[in-house]
């Protein structure tokens, strides 16, 4: 009996005559439960190449492909830099393409799927993006696109799936797709999502993002989970040519008297603890220390609660709801997209001005209809928490209103990006900030490095 490779729920099993060269591989372990050698599926390409070079015969039973081949019904037209990105990726068929928001990363992926001709699993962060990818893929591969999330699980030759669903389903779906596409690939290195990459045998992997870097440093793992960055183009290299110009206006609002008194009190409580302990926060991981301390120290817990209270006041003050009214009045007829930090503020804005709401507590069915009507122009404004931060195409947005957000430059760039699709006139971005609070600094930090 030669060497037999088979698939077992995210791993590869080896039985039969196993050459010593294979047994020496550190990632291959003998599993006494089944009496066979086992490895994470991500090592499959390496196992196979060593096996083919050393074993007398190899029987590869790993694959159970979703379909034989994928063919595009229509040609995928690429811009010159997209063409370059595709060519760079095709050299190894493994790696990350870095392009700014609005530069058409999706097209690069569609062209890659068409060129490779293998069944593909496309992993995306949100339900909105599933819909968007499905629609775009269906133009080129009619009848061959399935989606897999929540209630709807229809697998097809090309299947679009959320990171959350893929984390669970990779054990079932892993050996059906030879190409993995990760949209917004900077999500992948997190401790759970990375298992999607580790438990898949797919030899071909494409990652897409505008900003691969993560504040926790885990982006270095993208190299082995997906592949190295094979192509990178910055916003400044494309801006003006392909995306619109923009203008940022800061709108300052005041806390009400009552809110201000409460804010001061919370701030005092928070600062006295932080200063008393000599704590300094230079990065999100420093802040994590306070979170950990709060598990033991009731005073740390109080300080943390105060900090949350301050944030809530800043992000939810009635004054912000009022400010939206002014902006709406100023831009009647424009397409407006409003972002908040907390769902509760998004809901308050929605109820007050009867603006559709896209947040997690609204049903998928309603969200889908809202997005479609917004694209068609039947709805002129939309308010959302974080679900639209990334990648979702909302064409022709003229005005972006940021009512609250973190100090992350990535979030800011992504939210701005919603208004930066090609259009003849300047886009307008409003940042509504609560005066004389921490938010002033937060807003400064997120704009640092965004020229």
């Amino acid at each position, binding site marked *: 009996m030669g060497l037999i490779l088979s698939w077992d729920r995210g791993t590869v099993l080896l039985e039969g005559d196993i050459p010593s060269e294979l047994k020496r591989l550190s990632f291959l372990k003998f599993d006494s439960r089944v009496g066979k050698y086992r490895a994470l599926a991500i090592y499959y390409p390496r196992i196979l190449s060593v096996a083919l070079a050393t074993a007398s015969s190899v029987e590869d039973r790993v694959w159970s492909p979703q379909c034989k081949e994928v063919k595009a019904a229509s040609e995928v037209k690429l811009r010159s830099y997209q063409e370059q990105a595709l060519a760079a990726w095709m050299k190894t068929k493994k790696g990350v393409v870095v392009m700014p928001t609005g530069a058409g990363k999706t097209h690069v992926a569609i062209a890659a799927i068409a060129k490779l001709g293998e069944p593909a699993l496309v992993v995306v962060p949100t339900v909105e993006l599933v819909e968007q990818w499905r629609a775009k893929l269906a133009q080129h591969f009619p009848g061959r696109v399935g989606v897999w999330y929540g209630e709807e699980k229809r697998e097809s030759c090309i299947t679009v799936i959320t990171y959350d669903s893929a984390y669970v389903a990779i*054990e079932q779906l892993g050996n059906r797709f030879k190409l993995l596409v990760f949209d917004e690939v900077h999500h992948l290195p997190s401790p759970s999502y990375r298992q999607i990459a580790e438990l898949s045998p797919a030899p071909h992997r494409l990652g897409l993002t505008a900003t691969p870097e993560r504040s926790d440093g885990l982006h270095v793992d993208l190299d082995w989970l997906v592949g190295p960055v094979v192509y990178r183009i910055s916003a400044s290299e494309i801006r003006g040519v392909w995306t619109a110009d923009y203008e940022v206006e800061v709108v300052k609002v005041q806390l009400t008297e009552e809110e201000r008194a409460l804010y001061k009190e919370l701030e005092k409580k928070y600062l006295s603890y932080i200063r008393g302990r000599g704590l300094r926060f230079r990065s999100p991981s420093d802040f994590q220390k306070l979170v950990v301390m709060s598990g033991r120290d009731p005073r740390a817990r109080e300080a943390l609660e105060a900090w949350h209270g301050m944030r809530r006041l800043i992000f939810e003050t009635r004054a912000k709801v009022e400010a939206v009214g002014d902006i709406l009045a100023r831009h009647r007829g424009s397409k407006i997209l409003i972002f908040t930090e907390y769902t509760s503020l998004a809901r308050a804005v929605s109820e007050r001005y009867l*603006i559709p709401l896209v947040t997690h507590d609204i049903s998928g069915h309603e969200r889908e209809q809202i997005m479609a009507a917004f694209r068609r122009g039947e709805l002129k404004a939309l308010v959302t928490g974080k679900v639209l931060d990334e990648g979702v195409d909302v064409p022709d947005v003229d005005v972006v209103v940021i009512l609250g957000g973190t100090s992350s430059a990535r979030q800011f760039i992504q939210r701005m990006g919603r208004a930066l699709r090609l259009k003849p006139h300047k886009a307008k971005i409003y940042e509504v900030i609560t005066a004389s609070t921490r938010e002033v600094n937060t807003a400064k930090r997120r704009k640092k490095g965004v020229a």
Partner: protein
Amino acid sequence: MIPLDYLRVTRRGKEIKPAYLSDVSAAAEVLEAARGAKTLGDFRKAVEALRGDRKLLGGLARLVEQLMEVEEVDSRLVARVRLEVFKASSAAGFPLTPEEREKIFEAAAAKLRMGAAEVKRLFMKAYEENRAVLKPPGVDPAELVRRYNLALIQTLLFKSLYVKATLPNAPVVVKSLVRAVKGLRLMYIAEERSGDLEFHFDGPASALRQIERYGVRLAKLVPYITAAGRWSIEAAVKLNEKIYTFRESNATAPDMPKNPTEAEEFDSSVEQEFYRQVSRVCPVQREPEVLVVGGRVYIPDFKIGDLYIEIVGFWTPDYLRRKYEKIAKVGKPLLVLVNEELAMATWRQLLPNVVVFKGRPRLEDVFKHVKPYCRQ
């Protein structure tokens, strides 16, 4: 099960245990809040107003929400109504005053041919907390406490790397447990130890690294284990990058909810018919004890004397060989009955202990195999 955010534990060195609840007063208060609530939002607010451990109250509230009957909402209708309101609002350039807002609802109502009040009511039903509580949970505080303690064990196991369990060799319990393991795509190794069965549960990738991936699924096994009446559990739990051991048994744990697994009498009419026929000539034991061979569990359907009998559904010769070779090797007498029509491949020769039947097994097909074991 309740979310990890509500987990309460006590640690002692490397040991970890849920902080079980023994006092019923908190459970009684949360149940009382549910009884007084008209909507889910009312209930949540009432719980928020209670004094006490937030994690405890939050966990109890989760369980209570799962147990109460909440108004079902036609989410398609709600979406249609809301979309009409939003469109009217967009067309009018968004209302800035309460009067303008009122007019939007009227415009949408006219379009939908509904009353404005009904439109407003449905508009707000998109939010979960506006849904009516139709019936509070039908459990008393003591039962809620039992369910809460079970849920705490399960939630602790969300972060488990593996789970071990010891149970008596009782076929009804083992059968549903092993079935759950397969359904959850987990793995097990079984061992027989002084009449009891010892199980080790984890997943495929557990052999390669410490992985929490299977924790949520391992947690789902707990009710199958505690259903045994006499049981013990051991697990490795990874919390905040530290690995703890969790040990519990029916002797040390608080009361668990009574959820007797239904004794499945027969899997199919074929088995029922077989039992009816054979039991006329020979004493037949149904659901005999489980066989453990090479770490695997076999659950025969019947036993006659020392002879185990299993009736198999769909089969191939390969499947039968793989499944029964080991049992044959360790010398346990086993008779396998297979339906000719359910063969998934052609065959020429089968193991000598396999009897092929058509339609349903008849006494004359099996009598010569059964007779030597039959002790009237």
